[in-house]
């Protein structure tokens, strides 16, 4: 079969990324031809500033060398500007007469710099700052001339000014607004930025309006003249006052344009369905994006349609700006200026060069502007995007997500200050150098890319802010554009909430039914979505949906904890951490009999037998004769207690008994993630109730109940929920909270993250304000737990496939 012809006009980052996506999914569908107006292969435009500053070379910023086009059989016309397209005969024509016919056309002409319409704009030495040619002109000018004037104090202008200064020129920045980067910064942070740049040697003319550029006899610029008549000398003028979508060609051939080439959600032009457009030239739902991440998202969607898969729609992106200006950290998002009806929280330390402003409206974060310390930018952006209510964290908001015991990366919050050998990701042992190398060599642009390639930030996520900073420094510009909803995994576009809702509303009882009902892309999911769906089914429809052991992680399939050498650990349940000499004797005997190499006391007041062979599991459970500790499961793990009023001279309540009662009432409870309780008998809190999913503290007049604490990656102090009088009430409230979490939490979401997501107010409403609802929750939990088997002893009922404990056959 003859291949179809795809012609791409424009050879920039968004367009070439689209081709890469297309080649991945349909490598043989098209003969591809690319026209590029510049004489260069695709390069990283964002990194022109480091080239100008002498930190990188042009070769280093090339993303796709000529050989890439050759290897993929792409015909490349470099330095040929396309001037006309015959849509009727489907022919593209370049300036030099080159013609190519097409079946599908992709227009990726990007954007043009805006040139001020002032007299003298065409003089020699007056340039924009957009491409390699401009950059080379500046580098060359710096060797011959002294005075540079940059018109425009936005990101691009400041980067140009910085680069020229580093190359030895005296640089003045002319800016019409009263402060720098007024679209990203408020007056205070703009002032801080100006001060910092001035101290490096840049000069600024604020509120200055350019009237004309004056030339010398040879036709080269020599001065800039302002509206008030004053002049300053200029041998080089760089215009950096903004960009406009480049729609010249599209308009000429009659495509509908309105601040960009108007495209649909499939990235097709609305005028001609054979013609697609992505990148800075395309206007999607009225927005022409100028940041890399949304453009790559567009490319991905466009590629699926070019590949004739007919799936995927681009629904727009929310963007924040996190900018690198000559080594200064800036972040802004949303409505950072505030105003009518808004409240502001401001932290200002001009001497230390740190300024943070958060804008709040109707108890939600609507804008943020950070200068000097941007490590929490991504957290604020997430709060802003999610529209989360702030009342319960408002007092901590300004201090950031990292102020409460962030571990794993040496307390660093400034990526730039780290050495290459410093560890960024403590979970996966990834250094700063490794992350930067991967970003450079593999051409990564998004957090997801970095996670996939390096594993940095892919486990606990506490270093996400650092990784984002590295992306910014290394790949340049922006990176953070978040899809409006988060898909469960690569097998689907549906979110956790949507899956739960469908399971509930359509009463789905089996995993395959979910896949069918929700059009899963894979036949049986993956190791990430299948355990989640299995949990959603059995938690939504207890006693009806059937548990599928093959959709559970190995620990919940073999009811023991797999260790690094493939052996298992066995942790029997000790109610409330209380044991007897008989139990200890049986544990000791079993340890001897099965040659257990290590016996350890756990943090949850249990005894851990480590290094048990899988073949021995069933026998050791039987010999020990104690209930399963579920130490391997997303379930109630332990109830840690102190000795309480029975023995302790300070004890006010019988914490040990309450702990045992709670544990007996709720053991065998599967949940989205592991669940830990603690009960302390007095405010000295020896059981550490403040960092548990549910922590109870006895006081003289009753019990205080705390929820959603966590002693893990981020130490999170539990929130006070309610004070109760009796132990019975404690059990009911605890059960109700657990059931709420079981019904609403996403799989692998701990209570702390669940409560952070839905807000403490929501939990209070459900548990405290609605007595009937609370009782109903507690009853639903009791119904689910009633008759639940102990998987160590009731194999049939617990669906334990005992075949797994022995090899199927042995070869000698």
């Amino acid at each position: 079969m003859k291949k179809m012809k795809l012609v791409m006009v424009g050879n920039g980052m968004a367009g070439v990324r689209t081709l890469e996506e297309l080649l991945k999914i349909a490598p043989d569908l098209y003969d591809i031809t690319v026209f590029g107006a510049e004489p260069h292969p695709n390069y990283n435009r964002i990194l022109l500033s480091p080239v100008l500053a002498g930190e990188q070379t042009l070769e280093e910023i090339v993303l796709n060398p000529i050989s890439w086009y050759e290897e993929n059989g792409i015909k490349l016309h470099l330095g040929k500007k396309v001037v006309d397209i015959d849509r009727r005969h489907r022919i593209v024509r370049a300036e030099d007469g080159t013609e190519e016919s097409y079946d599908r056309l992709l227009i990726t002409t990007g954007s043009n710099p805006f040139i001020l319409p002032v007299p003298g704009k065409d003089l020699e030495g007056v340039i924009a700052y957009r491409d390699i040619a401009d950059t080379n002109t500046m580098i060359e000018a710096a060797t011959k001339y002294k005075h540079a004037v940059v018109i425009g104090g936005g990101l691009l202008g400041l980067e140009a000014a910085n680069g020229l200064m580093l190359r030895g020129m005296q640089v003045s920045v002319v800016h019409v607004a009263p402060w720098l980067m007024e679209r990203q910064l408020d007056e205070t942070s703009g002032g801080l930025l100006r001060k910092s740049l001035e101290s490096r040697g840049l000069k600024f003319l604020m509120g200055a309006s350019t009237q004309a550029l004056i030339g010398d006899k040879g036709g080269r610029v020599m001065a800039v003249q302002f509206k008030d008549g004053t002049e300053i000398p200029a041998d080089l003028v760089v215009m950096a006052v903004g960009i406009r979508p480049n729609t010249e060609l599209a308009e000429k051939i009659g495509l509908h344009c309105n601040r960009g080439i108007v495209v649909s959600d499939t990235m097709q032009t609305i005028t001609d369905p054979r013609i697609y457009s992505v990148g800075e030239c395309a206007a999607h739902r009225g927005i022409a994006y100028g940041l890399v991440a949304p453009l790559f998202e567009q490319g991905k969607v466009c590629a699926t349609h070019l590949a004739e898969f007919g799936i995927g729609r681009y629904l727009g992106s929310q963007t924040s700006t996190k900018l690198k200006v000559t080594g200064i950290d800036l972040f802004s998002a949303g409505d950072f200026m505030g105003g009518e009806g808004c409240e502001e929280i401001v932290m200002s330390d001009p001497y230390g060069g740190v300024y943070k402003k958060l804008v709040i409206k109707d108890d939600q974060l609507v804008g943020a502007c950070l200068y000097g310390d941007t490590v929490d930018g991504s957290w604020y952006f997430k709060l802003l995007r999610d529209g989360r209510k702030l009342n319960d964290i408002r007092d901590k908001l300004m201090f950031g997500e990292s102020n409460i015991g962030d571990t794993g990366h040496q307390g660093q919050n400034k990526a730039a200050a780290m050495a290459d050998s410093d560890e960024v990701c403590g979970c996966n042992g990834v250094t700063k150098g490794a992350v930067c190398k991967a970003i450079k060599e593999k051409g990564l642009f998004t957090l997801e890319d970095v996670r996939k390639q390096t594993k940095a930030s892919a486990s606990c996520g506490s270093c996400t802010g650092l990784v984002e900073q590295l992306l910014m420094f290394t790949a340049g510009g922006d990176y953070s554009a978040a899809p409006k909803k988060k898909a469960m995994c690569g097998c689907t576009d549906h979110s956790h909430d949507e899956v739960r809702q469908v399971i509930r509303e359509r009463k789905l009882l089996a995993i395959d039914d979910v896949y069918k009902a929700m059009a899963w892309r894979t036949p049986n999911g993956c190791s990430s979505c299948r355990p989640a769906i299995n949990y959603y089914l059995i938690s939504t429809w207890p006693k009806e949906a059937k548990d599928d052991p093959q959709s559970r992680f190995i620990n919940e399939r073999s009811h023991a904890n797999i260790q690094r050498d493939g052996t298992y650990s066995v942790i029997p349940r000790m109610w409330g951490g209380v044991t007897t000499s008989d139990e200890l004797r049986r544990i000791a005997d079993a340890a001897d009999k099965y040659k257990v190499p290590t016996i350890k006391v756990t943090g949850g007041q249990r005894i851990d037998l480590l290094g048990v062979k899988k073949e021995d599991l069933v026998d050791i459970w039987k010999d020990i004769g104690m209930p399963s500790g579920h130490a391997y499961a997303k379930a109630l793990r332990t109830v840690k207690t102190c000795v309480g009023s029975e023995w302790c001279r300070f004890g006010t309540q019988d914490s040990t008994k309450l702990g045992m009662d709670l544990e007996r009432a709720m053991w065998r409870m599967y949940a989205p993630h592991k669940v830990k309780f603690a009960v302390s008998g007095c405010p000295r809190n020896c059981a550490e109730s403040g960092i548990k999913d549910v922590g109870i503290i006895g006081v003289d007049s009753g019990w205080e109940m705390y929820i959603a604490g966590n002693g893990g990656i981020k130490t999170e102090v539990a929130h006070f929920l309610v004070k109760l009088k009796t132990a019975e009430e404690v059990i009911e409230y605890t059960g109700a909270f657990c059931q709420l979490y079981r019904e609403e939490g996403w799989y692998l979401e701990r209570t702390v993250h669940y409560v952070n997501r839905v807000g403490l107010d929501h939990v209070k409403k459900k548990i405290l304000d609605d007595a009937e609802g609370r009782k109903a929750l507690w009853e639903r939990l009791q119904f689910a737990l009633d008759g639940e088997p102990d998987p160590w002893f009731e194999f049939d009922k617990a669906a334990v496939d005992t075949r797994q404990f022995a090899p199927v056959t042995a070869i000698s």
Partner: protein
Amino acid sequence: MSDWKTICKVDDIPVLGSRRVARDGHTAVAVFRNSENKVFALLDRCPHKGGPLSQGIVFGESVACPLHNWTIGLDDGCARAPDAGCTQKFTVKLDGDQVQLSLNELKTLALGEPDVPADTPAQAGAA
């Protein structure tokens, strides 16, 4: 004598699950069955840090290692990008409902692998 050794029946392996074939003194071989009743056999040892693949979650034609969630292709034993590395694969023959492996392969392939993985530095990405 035929080289093909009957290991078990297809139904002895759970759907989307696996069983182990023990090899005296050497790393076991894992036999997998997917949802289309295709049977695969790999050395029971992840190329990353030696995790027992037989204990992983099977999906499509892949298995996720239980230790660090690397995805290993059942058809070729190789890690899916961005991870890299392969484990030994073994030829599977289906005779009716009988699963057969080559005795020769079982007795000669991947015998040098230590049963317990050596302690390796944290992560390839750190190199």
